[in-house]
């Protein structure tokens, strides 16, 4: 096994913190250098927060594990400066196909329109993503990673958190203002603090078999219900880079995980699925069970839980790693504002409020998929099969097939931070939505909106013709740039030349206008995490400032 990848070994170095008498203090410590912890650390470093990240191990993921990354995750990685190698190596796919008893019953395109910088999904082994994140972390002076640093105890006080850490050179302590816990589903830190993640176990087992083969299957997601080679159960086929293919087999609860993992038992299953004449080699195998659960709240004073440590979902729909990365996207800018005294502490509660809402949606969707894929009763099974049979002819039934609702973003319309619509809009870019990308033209040629927004508050102001931009609006935009919480402005013109004194792009393809239902004077306020937080049909600086205050809990 492991023909295509060799895990790097990162060097443990004794830190100067280990030679001091008392614990050395750090502003921010992240526990766990998985995709979520590293995304958090990079985001924090980019926000100029000195950051220390600890990991108990000294390598990246063993095995491909989370392989499916969504457009929103790629947009976050884009903001963090990591998307390019992901796109270059990753397998881009948009098409999913569903088979029932060997017959194609449905296919779905996840990105039915052009005009986005990033694709709907890529498949990429988790170890590659982690490697790229490690490489990116190395570029920051204010970001330090310590491998082979295992947290053994956590003590929380009103003014700081104290960590006891074990290393190859023995134990030491350090303290921090803020602790981000990204140490995975079985989070030791969660245990140390006596906290729980509660939910539901599913009584089923699945086999992952990654195989290396030269095959002519297209880069699509193939989900099979009740195939002849694996009757009564389901399978999944998905392509990864390096000619590695992810195969999933539903095994049932009675399967013996140790037996099922053995190559002599895996190989016949793979052969049955792929056909006798396809040559392959096993790359990695794993048998897993899963549960859907979450912590009651993701914030405990100075401690934040992110990713699997905070919430866990079944794997159908790729909502695990993707939602974890979206957690940190939501948290870091808030932390920066609170750390610099620009927002009150209660802004940090909104991290939990917003991400608990998103976690509940993820848990709901992945639980529903699990119930569809593995029906729990005879009648449930009958309905499931009826949906699949009908779907050959009936479009509505196709939409009911649930082989995993692939990771999408929650609409945070109920969040206390968003300013509800007071004007009428026809688009789904409601306050609380993750912003949609659009192609635009700037002074340097073609650009993507998503590249121009993020990391700080941004105001998008639309005018049909840039020449008509009024002096008073320009003055207000300048004032917003000097606001206590500064706002970057981007004028988007339907036509015209870039306006003087303000960043301007032209909506040459009309897609911004369409996606944002923009008309003369339409104004969108975007949060640092690229979420729409308010929008109006006309520019009004008083309303804009009030919406910024609302979005930062400064009211």
């Amino acid at each position: 096994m492991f023909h295509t990848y060799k895990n790097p070994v990162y060097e443990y170095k004794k830190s100067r913190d280990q030679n001091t008498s008392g614990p050395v203090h750090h502003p921010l410590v992240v526990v766990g250098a998985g995709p979520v912890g590293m995304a958090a650390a990079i985001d924090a470093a980019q926000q100029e927060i000195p950051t220390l990240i600890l990991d108990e191990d000294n390598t990246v993921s063993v095995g491909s594990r989370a392989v499916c990354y969504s457009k929103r995750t790629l947009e976050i990685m884009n903001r963090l400066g990591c998307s390019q190698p992901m796109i270059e190596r990753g397998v881009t796919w948009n098409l999913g196909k569903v088979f029932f008893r060997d017959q194609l019953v449905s296919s779905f395109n996840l990105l039915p329109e052009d005009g986005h910088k990033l694709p709907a999904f890529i498949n990429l082994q988790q170890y590659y993503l982690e490697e790229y994140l490690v490489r990116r972390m190395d570029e920051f002076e204010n970001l330090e990673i310590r491998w082979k640093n295992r947290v053994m105890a956590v003590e929380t006080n009103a003014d700081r958190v104290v960590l006891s850490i074990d290393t190859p050179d023995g134990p030491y302590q350090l303290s921090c203002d803020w602790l981000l816990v990204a140490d995975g589903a079985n989070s030791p830190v969660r245990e140390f603090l006596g906290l729980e993640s509660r939910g539901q176990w599913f009584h089923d087992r699945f086999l992952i078999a990654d195989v290396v083969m030269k095959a002519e299957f297209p880069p699509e997601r193939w989900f099979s219900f009740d195939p002849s080679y694996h009757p009564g159960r389901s399978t999944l086929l998905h392509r990864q880079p390096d000619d590695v293919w992810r195969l999933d087999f539903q095994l049932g609860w009675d399967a013996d995980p140790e037996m099922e993992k053995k190559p002599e038992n895996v190989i016949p299953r793979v052969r049955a699925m792929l056909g006798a004449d396809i040559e392959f080699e096993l790359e990695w195998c794993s048998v897993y069970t899963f549960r859907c659960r979450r912590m009651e709240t993701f914030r405990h004073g100075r401690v934040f839980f992110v990713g699997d440590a905070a919430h866990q979902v079944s794997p159908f729909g790729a909502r695990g790693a993707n939602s974890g990365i979206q957690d940190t996207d939501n948290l870091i800018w808030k932390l920066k504002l609170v750390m610099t005294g620009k927002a009150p502490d209660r802004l940090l509660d909104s991290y939990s409020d917003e991400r608990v809402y998103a976690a509940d949606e993820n848990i709901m969707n992945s639980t529903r998929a699990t119930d569809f894929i593995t029906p729990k009763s005879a009648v449930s099974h009958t309905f499931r099969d009826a949906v699949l049979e009908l779907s050959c002819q009936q479009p509505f039934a196709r939409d009911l097939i649930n082989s995993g609702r692939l990771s999408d973003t929650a609409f945070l319309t109920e969040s206390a931070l968003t300013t509800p619509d007071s004007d009428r809009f026809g688009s789904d870019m409601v306050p609380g939505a993750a912003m949609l990308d659009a192609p635009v033209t700037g002074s340097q040629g073609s650009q993507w909106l998503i590249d121009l927004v993020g990391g700080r508050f941004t105001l998008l102001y639309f005018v049909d013709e840039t020449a008509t931009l009024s002096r008073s609006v320009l003055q207000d935009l300048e004032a917003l740039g000097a606001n206590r919480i500064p706002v970057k402005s981007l004028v988007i013109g339907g036509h015209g030349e870039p306006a003087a004194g303000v960043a301007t792009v032209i909506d040459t393809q009309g897609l911004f206008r369409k996606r944002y239902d923009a008309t003369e004077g339409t104004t969108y306020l975007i949060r640092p995490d690229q979420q729409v937080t308010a929008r109006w049909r006309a520019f009004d600086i008083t309303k804009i400032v009030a919406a910024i205050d609302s979005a930062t809990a400064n009211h």
Partner: protein
Amino acid sequence: MPLVRETNFHQPGKRYFRRYRAGDDFYEALINMHRELSDEQSAKANAKLILLLANHIGDLEVLGEALEIARSGVDSFPENE
């Protein structure tokens, strides 16, 4: 009006941002209705449900179309051994 074959699940006053969401809401409610019922009880609940919905639709042409589609697939789809 002929039988609606495109997705039609919705709830007055509720905004759905995802195409699959209203259908999934219904499907979950349907499966939940059967929770803790025996197979026999489930069959009876299904029969009542069909009668209620048929009366609500009322239009015999639509119902006739649905009856035909429901019947026709039952013995034609391949079974696994």
